[in-house]
C-alpha cells in the first residue's frame, strides 16, 4: 500500500517538473493526439473506399481500435520508466535506486510519467465514444465489465513488454529497439480484428503475446458473435495479467544479474 503512496508522490513531482515547460508540454500533447488521429483517418478512408473488411463494419473496427489505443496510451503513461529504462542504466542512475530502501519496480515506475500521452488517451476515448454510440450493442453489466477488463488487461500486456525489454538492458546496455515490433507493431496489428491475418500471426498474438485475448475474442462476446460459453470469452482478457507475471519475474532475475556484473 505504501508503494502506491510513494508512486503518487513521484507522480506529483514529475507533474510539477513537466509543467515547467508549458508551451512544449501543450504542443507535445497536441502532437500525441494527432499521431493516432492520422491512423484513424486512414482507417476511415479505407472503409470509405472498400465498404467493409471481411464482414467487419467500420464502427466494429473502430471499437477494436479504441480499446487497443487506450490500453497502449495508458501503459505508455504509467510504464514509461521501463520504456526509457536504458537511459537509467547508461547514466548509472540505476545505482542510485539500489541504495534506496524501496523495491526497484516502484522506483522505476516513478522515474518517468508522460503526461503528454493524455493527448493520445483523449483521442482513444473519442474513438471509443464514436464507436459505442454507433454500434447496436445491448449493454448489460457483464458487457461493461468485459470492456473495462479488456482495456485494463491490454495495459498489462504492453506494460509486460516494456518490463521485458527493460530487463534486456541489463545485458545489452543500449536497449533493444526490437521492442518496437511488439509494442508499436502489436498496437498497429491489434487495431484490426485478428481474424483478417494469416494463421501464424493469429497464433502468435493469441498464445505468446495475448493481444487477441484482450481484444478480438472478448469483442466477439460484446457483439454477440461468440459461440460458446460467455464466461469464457469474458475471462479471456485475464491472459494479459498472466502475461505480466513472468515478465516481472524476469525483471527480478535481471536486477540480480546487474548486481553481479555491474554492467
Amino acid at each position, binding site marked *: 500500500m*505504501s508503494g502506491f503512496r510513494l508512486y503518487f508522490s513521484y507522480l506529483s513531482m514529475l507533474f510539477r517538473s513537466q509543467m*515547467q515547460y508549458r508551451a512544449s508540454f501543450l504542443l507535445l500533447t497536441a502532437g500525441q493526439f494527432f499521431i493516432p488521429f492520422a491512423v484513424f483517418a486512414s482507417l476511415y478512408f479505407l472503409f470509405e473506399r472498400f465498404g467493409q473488411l471481411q464482414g467487419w463494419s467500420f464502427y466494429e473496427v473502430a471499437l477494436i481500435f479504441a480499446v487497443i489505443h487506450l490500453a497502449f496510451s495508458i501503459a505508455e503513461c504509467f510504464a514509461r520508466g521501463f520504456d526509457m529504462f536504458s537511459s537509467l542504466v547508461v547514466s548509472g542512475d540505476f545505482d542510485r535506486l539500489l*541504495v534506496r530502501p524501496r523495491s526497484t519496480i516502484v522506483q522505476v515506475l516513478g522515474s518517468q510519467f508522460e503526461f503528454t500521452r493524455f493527448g493520445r488517451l483523449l483521442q482513444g476515448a473519442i474513438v471509443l465514444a464514436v464507436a459505442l454510440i454507433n454500434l447496436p450493442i445491448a449493454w448489460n453489466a457483464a458487457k461493461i465489465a468485459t470492456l473495462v477488463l479488456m482495456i485494463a488487461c491490454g495495459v498489462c500486456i504492453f506494460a509486460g513488454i516494456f518490463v521485458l525489454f527493460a530487463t534486456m538492458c541489463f545485458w545489452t546496455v543500449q536497449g533493444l529497439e526490437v521492442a518496437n515490433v511488439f509494442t508499436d507493431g502489436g498496437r498497429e496489428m491489434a487495431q484490426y480484428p485478428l481474424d483478417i491475418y494469416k494463421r501464424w500471426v493469429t497464433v502468435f498474438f493469441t498464445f505468446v503475446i495475448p493481444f487477441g485475448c484482450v481484444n478480438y475474442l472478448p469483442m466477439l462476446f460484446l457483439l454477440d458473435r461468440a459461440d460458446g460459453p460467455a464466461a469464457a470469452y469474458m475471462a479471456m482478457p485475464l491472459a494479459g495479467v498472466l502475461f505480466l507475471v513472468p515478465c516481472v519475474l524476469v525483471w527480478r532475475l535481471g536486477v540480480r544479474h546487474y548486481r553481479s556484473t*555491474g554492467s
Partner: protein
Amino acid sequence: MIELQGISKSFKVAKRSPGIGQAFKALFAREHTIVHALRDVSFSIGEGEIVGYIGPNGAGKSTSIKVMSGILVPDEGSCRIMGHTPWRDRTEYVRSIGVVFGQRSQLWWDVPVLDSFELLKDIYRIREADYRSNLAMLTETLDLEPILQVPVRQLSLGQRMRCEIAASLLHGPRILFLDEPTIGLDAVSKLAVRKFIRTLNEEKGVTVILTTHDMSDIEALAGRILMIGKGTLLYDGTIEKLRSRFGTERKITVDHEPSEKAPEVPGATLLSWTGERTVLSVDTERNRMADVLSRLTGQIELIDVSVEAKPVDEMIVELYREHRI
C-alpha cells in the same frame, strides 16, 4: 562496524575498435577481456572513523564503494556492515547508510530542493518528527535556508553539493559514503563541505568513507588512508605514518638581505639562490634543523624563513610510483 574479508570482483568487458571495417566485424562477433577490479581486499573500519579512500582512476575505488553500499555482489569474500551483508537484505541495509555520488545528482532537476527532500522523506519512510529535526539541523549547518525554494537547475555547483549531502543524510544514516564530494567546487564551498563533514563526524558520530582525488580533502578530514591500486589494497594507515615514511625532508625558504654568493651550508642541499632568496632542502633525520639555521645566520642576514614538509600530493605520487600504478 565495517568488516571486509578477501573481497574479489572481476568484470567481462567488450572490446571495441574504431573504423568501418571493425564496426562491420563487431556486428557479428565481439571479443571480451576480463578485468580484475578487486583482488582479495580486506580491511575493517571502526565506528566514528573518517577514512579516505584513494587510488588512481580505474583502481577499484568505485567498485568497492558499490560492494559496500549493496549495489554490487562480489565474486568472493565476505563483508559485514553493522551486522548486515550489504548485498543480501538490500532494502533493510540501505536504510542506515547514505551515499553521495559527487558526479551524479539525486535531486530532481526542475523542482525546488525542498520538494526533492519531501519525496526522499516518502522514499525512506522517515517519521515526520525525525524529518523535521534532521531537516532543521541540516538547513542550519549547511546554510540551506536561502536555497530550499530554488529549483535545482538554478543552483551553483557548490550549493548543489550541499543539497546533495543534505539529501543523503535526511534519514539519519550511521555510515556516509562520499564519492568525490568536492569535485569541481570552488575554495569556499570546499571548505564548507569539509567543515560540515567534520562536524557531522564529531557530533553525530557518523562513520565517513570518502573517495577523492583531492589530497587536501584527505589531509583536512581523514585520520586514516586506504590506498587501492590495480584492485589490491596497497596502504592502510594514518597520514602521520605516511609522513614519517617519506617526509623526513623539509624545504627551507629564506628571504635575506642581498648577498654576493649563495650560502654554503653543510648538511643541506641548495635548491636555488637568486641573491635575495635561497631555497634549501634538509633531511631532518641526519641533520638538526637548528644547526642548519644557525649556520645560515652566520653567512647572511635573514628577513623571513619558512619551513615546509613535503605535500601529501607528492607523497601519494611517490607511493603510486613505488607500486607501479
